[in-house]
């Protein structure tokens, strides 16, 4: 039973989310096994270059709509275009990356086509052409197996759960331009501006994450400026602690994470929170500094390939999940660790 697969390429102003290519990689594996073909769906303005990249990552053809109406992320007109593309292409399976935009469009598309969506999938089985998906629930504390009884089936793939293919620059294919029969004036939203997020490596895409917890504020050697009250002094100390975390992250090209305790104590912005009520991540290497390992934090990071725990409390639960444990004060260990890694990576 061959499969026609439509893969949505998520991007921001023409810059693709890397997880978009993981969808194409999975699609290629499925169609190689079952037969069939894959189209990449690219919606935006000035996105022709993305089509070239999509071929390199395995698309057999590209469906593309280029219009100022689609330039900024506005779910309503984009979902209209996805529904139109599905009607034109008639896929059996539609794949989105589990990004903020991918999740939104997948959900709306399921409503438009009166089908279901399996979100944040980490495993897929297609034996005999019957698709069943595995996804984490309760922040990864349990796994659910899901099937969808209606067509097309829609899934969103968790970032980094499936391999990103090697680009093949010899590949090419045909681009079909979709007619954008939308009236811009009929769209209920407009984008006033964008606010810079200050860069840094994104947690979801990171190969390596260095995280800080409550312990970042507990450097006994630090003397906060005298004019600060207790709360401000604690945050000042935490900022010095996170500077060490950031220093190690910079050397490793890593993203900076945090425990809920550190976020709730206002040591760092919520964007960095890893855990059941933050981001669920699975990097190759996760270095937890001054994190004790509350169950809701563990839920968000325990699928990391290798976990290193640095904590002065040898009984901290995080050590039960760590491949390597360093019992000691993170403030004493991070500076020599950062320089040792810098030295090694400099070759």
């Amino acid at each position, binding site marked *: 039973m061959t499969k026609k697969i439509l893969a949505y390429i998520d991007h921001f102003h023409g810059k693709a*989310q890397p997880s978009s290519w993981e969808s194409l990689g999975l699609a290629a594996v499925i169609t190689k096994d079952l037969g069939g073909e894959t189209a990449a769906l690219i919606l935006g303005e000035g996105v022709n270059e993305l089509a070239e990249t999509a071929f390199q990552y395995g698309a057999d053809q590209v469906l593309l709509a280029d219009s100022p109406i689609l330039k900024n*992320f*506005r*779910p*309503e007109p984009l979902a209209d275009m996805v529904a139109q593309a599905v009607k034109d292409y008639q896929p059996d399976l539609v794949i989105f990356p589990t*990004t903020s935009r991918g*999740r*939104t469009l997948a*959900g*709306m598309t*399921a*409503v*438009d086509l*009166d*089908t*279901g*969506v399996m*979100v*944040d999938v980490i495993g897929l089985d297609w034996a005999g052409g019957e698709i*069943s998906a595995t996804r*984490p*629930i*309760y*922040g990864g*504390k*349990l*796994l659910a197996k*899901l*099937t969808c*009884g209606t067509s097309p089936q829609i899934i969103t793939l968790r970032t980094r759960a499936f391999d990103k293919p090697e680009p093949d620059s010899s590949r090419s294919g045909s681009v079909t331009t979709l007619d954008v029969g939308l009236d811009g004036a009929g769209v*209920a939203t407009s*984008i*006033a501006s*964008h*606010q810079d*997020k200050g860069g840094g490596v*994104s947690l*979801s895409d990171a190969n390596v994450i260095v995280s800080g917890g409550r312990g970042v504020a507990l450097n006994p050697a630090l003397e906060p400026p005298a004019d600060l009250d207790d709360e401000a002094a604690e945050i000042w100390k935490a900022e010095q602690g996170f500077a060490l975390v950031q220093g190690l992250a910079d050397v490793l090209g890593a993203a900076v994470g945090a425990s809920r305790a550190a976020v709730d104590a206002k040591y760092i912005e*919520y*964007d960095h*929170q890893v855990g*059941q*009520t933050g981001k669920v991540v699975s990097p190759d*290497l996760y270095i937890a500094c001054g994190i004790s390992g*509350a*169950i*809701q934090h563990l839920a968000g990071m325990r*699928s990391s*390939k*290798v976990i*290193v725990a640095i904590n002065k409390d*040898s009984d901290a639960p995080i*050590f039960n999940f*760590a*491949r390597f444990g*360093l019992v*000691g004060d993170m403030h004493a260990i991070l500076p*020599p660790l950062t320089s*040792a*890694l810098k030295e090694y990576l400099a070759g």
Partner: protein
Amino acid sequence: MKIIVCVKQVPDTAATMTVDNGAISWGDAPLIINPWDEFAVEAALNLAADQGGEVIALCLGKEGETEAIKHALAMGADSAVMISDPALEGADNVAASKVLTAAIQKIGEADLVLFGQQSVDTDTGLLPVQTARLLKWPSLTLVSKFESVNPGDGKIQVLRSMEEAGQVVDSSLPAVVSVTKDYGEPRYPSFMGIRKASKAEYPVWSLADLGIETPSSSIVWPEVTEPVKKEIVTEIIEGETPEEKAKSLVEKLIAEKVL
């Protein structure tokens, strides 16, 4: 301003989850309002206080799942509606959003429907966008800030979060908004609030009350399992000084090809 805030009851995030004979169990862990929903309730209460108006908590759940509604009322919601029907057992997200849509229409004349960004049990985050799509209202997800709200002009401006940037969006009302933790700390219920909530009465609507048939579900969950526990052998890195420990860790990471 009329604001409906959708809330859900879930097991505490500190709960250890297990599967017993195929059924999901959280032991004796307490049931709580979905933590994400507290931010939505907080936003709803602040908007109603600023603009004048009412906040209605709406909960889809099994009979007796009262924790989320009670918590929203204790925080200060004016009233609540529960939707409960045995026919909704196993409803998927599209089905659930059809039911919520019918309830929102039955309540009527809402300017805003607020959700938490997702629930900590099934973690799909689909209900806000699917309900918006069914209502044909704009969907404003992952909102951390309400820049301006003008129910008189039917306009709202919010700050949304995306991976690469924040996005300031102008939208018409009514609209569906999902609220993130960045919105700000939710209030603790007051003693008076808890007392009021414990005595509160609210309607429980069935599908018949909503005037809809049982919506069909596409997604089924034939199996839930506990993740296979990785056998982890923890190696404690020894050393006299932090420098020695650091050096030893780097050597181990290289030896295991982590670096």
